[in-house]
């Protein structure tokens, strides 16, 4: 396997290096990828068409919103998949190990207090990242991961149960579903109002704004949906992986 792998790797690598000879230089502003009308249009027209200064957010949630919908679905799928894989009958061995582990935990005062202090700040920051995605780097994914991270931090520094008391696994999956539903629901509303799927400009009647601002609002709505899904799935994945799908003990 090792020699076979090495041969395959060397051949592929040689092929890729051979092709890279043909690439435009790194950082060349006149490379085809940057010169072609797609990229030009995105840079020049995004603000005009969606009134979002952060081009990445606008392309992510609007021009290529369909991609992002399925990106959210990928995360959602991963969450469901991990539950489906790990859930099973309870194994005695693990339960024993968990019992011994429990005692070590509870005593660490500094850790507990720092965490108590940090978690709300992290969550606040996450909300800021989600909401400010139009104007600065960030958006639903990043904010969602950070929010999920705050729950993971809670679970690591106390016990998994502490975090699960606040957001149980069932709730997390429910919230993740709601997130995907928000995203696709906005798309569906567009479809029902007579536009194409995910054509937010059609929402302008509903929101009482002009079509361009409607796109901006649509993007915000979509980002919120993404954040819901990502935050809750990140936590659900952690909860499952750290406890072997048993929701007990954990890291």
């Amino acid at each position, binding site marked *: 396997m090792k020699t076979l792998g090495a041969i395959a790797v060397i051949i592929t690598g040689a092929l890729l290096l051979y092709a890279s000879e043909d690439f435009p230089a790194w950082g060349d502003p006149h490379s085809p*990828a940057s010169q072609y009308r*797609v*990229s030009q249009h995105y840079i020049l027209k995004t603000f005009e068409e969606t009134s979002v200064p952060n081009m990445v957010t606008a392309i992510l949630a609007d021009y290529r919103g369909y991609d992002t919908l*399925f990106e959210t679905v990928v995360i959602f*799928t991963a969450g469901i998949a991990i539950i489906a894989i790990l859930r099973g009958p309870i194994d005695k061995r693990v339960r024993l190990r968990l019992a011994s582990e429990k005692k070590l935990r509870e005593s660490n005062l500094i850790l507990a207090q720092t965490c108590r202090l940090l978690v709300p700040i992290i969550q606040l920051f996450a909300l800021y990242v989600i909401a400010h995605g139009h104007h600065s780097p960030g958006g639903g994914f990043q904010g969602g991961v950070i929010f999920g991270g705050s729950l993971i931090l809670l679970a690591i520094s106390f016990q998994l149960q502490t975090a699960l008391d606040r957001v149980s696994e069932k709730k997390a999956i429910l919230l993740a579903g709601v997130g995907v539903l928000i995203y696709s629901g906005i798309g569906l509303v567009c479809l029902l109002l007579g536009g194409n799927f995910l054509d937010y400009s059609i929402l302008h009647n509903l929101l009482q704004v002009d079509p361009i601002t409607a796109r901006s609002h649509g993007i915000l709505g979509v980002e919120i949906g993404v954040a819901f899904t990502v935050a809750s799935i990140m936590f659900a994945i952690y909860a499952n992986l750290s406890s072997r799908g048993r929701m007990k003990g954990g890291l």
Partner: protein
Amino acid sequence: MVDQYPAIILLAPFFAAIAVSLFGSWKNGLCLPMAIIALGISLAASIALLGQVAAEGEIVYLLGGWSRPFGIEFRIDPLNAMLLVVVTTVALLTAVYSTQAAVLETPNKYPQFYTLFLLLVTGLLGMSLTGDAFNLYVLVEVASLTSYALIAMHSKRAVLASFNYIIMGTIGASFYLLGVGYLYIKTGSLNMVDIREILQETGLYGSKTIMVAFMLIMVGVWIKMAFFPLHGWLPNAYSYAPSSTSCILAPLMTKVTVYVMIRMMLTVFGPEYVFQYLGWSNVVVWMAVLAIVAGSIMALAQTDLKKMFSYIIVAEVGYMVGGVWLANETAFIGAFYHVISDAFMTLCLFLAAGAIITKTGKRSISEMEGLFRKMPWTMVGFVIAALSMIGIPPTCGFFSKWYLINGAIEAGHWGYVVALLFSSLINAILFFKVFEVAYFSKPSHGQEKDENQPESAGTDGVGEPPATMLAPLLITASGLLLIGIFNQDIVILIRQAVSSFGFIGFLN
């Protein structure tokens, strides 16, 4: 509403998946009806869309209302319209089949199973619909992630098979992604049609990057469809998966990926580039020959029923890849016709295998004694599928082979003809081996067998499977005959699509 069919096809299973995940754990009984209703809607919409495409030609659906190179679009021509009907039909039949099977095989994961199942169908539908090269990658990943999980949900061996599938599947998808990146760095576009136009207009045919991009995409897609030297992950994954999973994965995953390959070759790079400029068809057809021969021989060596079927799939992938790369219209018609008929043949085989395994608990061919007596209707379905696999006239398997062989003769590729005939012969041997055991041998150890059987089987040996398992099987079997009988209509549709690609004149 009429112009929203493409969205409806995709969204019906998608929303059903979310609904199942939201309400499924609250009421398990809701999962299956929701799945069946959604797939029914999707099937109806895809049939309507097929009618529309057949009448009006290619349909473009702009997502988000953004025009061609800026947004993502669905492009539906007769080929993928037919594929959509195939995918939704197979999914619907499998959903009906899973009524009992899912309860038996994944008892405590009922909502998860249906969520993943519907998302898998969504991914496959999206893969066939999309007209955007990068979007295809995302949907490939949706379909792959769900299939990893669906496979790993079951037995011990399935978990390991799933891990190998994750590794191989990720390599395949990443190669595809890299190939798209290579295309992007040279063309600056991600839209399939747009890429082809830029390639033609700016004279990029000679570019090394484009050639390597083509190789990367092909290798990536071949890994995903288990083309012979890259097939390693498939047999274990499909044969150890729970039966309702293998019933949906085995017929659809490889076929949809073959369609992706067709789309990449014809829509993105264009037949001119692939067949005329590169001129690799001969090499690839020989690889296909190798795949057919190797797949058949490996199938012959198997004792496990489902594993034997999995190796037959490896051989069948060789048929389709070879047919496409023969680069003439007849062979292409054969290849695409085979995509359709093979989806149903494989479904029929796996449904039969699933029914047999659930009822008897036996996986090995040598343990199939007396099945004709015990489960006559199941075996009727099995026999029709087997005849189709071998290529006996009224079934669809005959017609696809007919076109493939004619195409190969047209292209003067005798190696492929021989391989096809050889593989049919091996299939005949394989299936008659099964028939022999199932029809002629009597169960040697009559009474003590009962203890090994699952609770579902009655106390006095084995009977027919429940109606929810039998009905899809028989519908599929009759479908095989219908596809065979109405082959002309399908061929006309394929020809309509092929004529727009302009195949004639690319003989090698």
